[in-house]
């Protein structure tokens, strides 16, 4: 009985370590868009970033802390990497592991950004960092082509996560 408990505990630890290791999921834009636009009971905070983008990396901790900043609220962070798909295992995943990133990470597996940037927002030039906020009904609240301080980001999210 005791052994069984130990095994279960070990399993949980292993699982949580797996989660810690930050595995990136490569995704096509159409699939990403489909998920974002599907109504759910959650506000989505979708941050476009890359390992080579200094201001992006500087604001990542603010996104990481969203769930603890808004406990018991339905809010989900997705970090969408603009790194090359070929850099996923060599660069992106090691970076996530090193920084201990716990948020869900996708990698936009598309070659031509011109085919999808306007579908995120016609007002987005393609500069990163940029953040898209999706309301629970699947509509886009806004695309923010800017860096955030934690305070600015939380001020923006506060009224959305009633």
């Amino acid at each position: 009985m005791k052994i069984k408990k130990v095994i279960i505990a070990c399993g949980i630890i292993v699982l949580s370590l797996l989660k810690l290791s930050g595995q990136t999921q490569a995704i096509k834009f159409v699939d990403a868009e489909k998920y974002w636009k599907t109504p759910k009971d959650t506000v989505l905070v979708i941050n476009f970033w890359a390992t080579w983008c200094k201001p992006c990396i500087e604001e990542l901790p603010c996104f990481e802390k969203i769930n603890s900043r808004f406990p018991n609220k339905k809010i989900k962070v997705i970090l969408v990497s603009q790194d090359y798909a070929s850099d996923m295992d060599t660069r992106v995943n090691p970076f996530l592991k090193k920084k201990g990133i716990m948020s869900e990470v996708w990698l936009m597996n598309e070659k031509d950004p011109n085919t999808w940037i306007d579908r995120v927002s016609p007002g987005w030039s393609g500069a990163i960092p940029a953040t898209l906020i999706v309301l629970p009904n699947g509509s886009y609240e806004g695309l923010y082509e800017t860096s955030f301080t934690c305070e600015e980001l939380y001020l923006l999210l506060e009224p959305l996560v009633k």
Partner: protein
Amino acid sequence: MKTLLLILLVVAVPLIGNAQGMSIGEKPAVQLASGYAPGDRAESFSLKNVDGAQVSLDNFSDAKGFIVVFTCNHCPFSVAYEDRIIQLDKTYKSLGYPVIALNPNDPQIQPEDSYDNMKKRAKQKKFSFPYLLDEGGVYAHKYGATKTPHVYLLQKKADGLSVAYIGAIDNNSKSGAEADQKYLENALKELIAGKEVSVKTTKAIGCSIKYSKS
């Protein structure tokens, strides 16, 4: 004052509503405000080159226009495009469209983008074109550039420099060989053939321009 700034930022920053075009909020007060659209007249400039000399667009009497590229030293996308930019200059300078590169980044924010490092990079890569210091990002701001690399193809007309194309060089930042849409070159070929540019704007992911915080 800080609170006021913060409120201003949060209120003013939302760019656009949703993809259906229901825009909410106002245009951001800083950085992304104005800028050119195709067909606009672009302001000429005279800026300091990596060799210390001033370079003015007004002094290229033989040119039919310019390939103005906002770029920098540090951004991996800019670096990935360097060889393609050199090639573009080699091909199109003799056809009347030389490359003019400008670095608008504030070295206080991104030290790799300092003037000294511009000089080093231009030497290393043997830039065949002027690489100008756009101090304070003045012209990037005027033109409406938001990221590096960000291209403005200008055509000389009787009443000034007409913006013919804005956007990306091609559709594959990683590999020019794999790019099957050479947006800028297509626009150049159309201009040279005396045609109207068919694709006037494109978008690409890029490093946000590090504007001075003043």
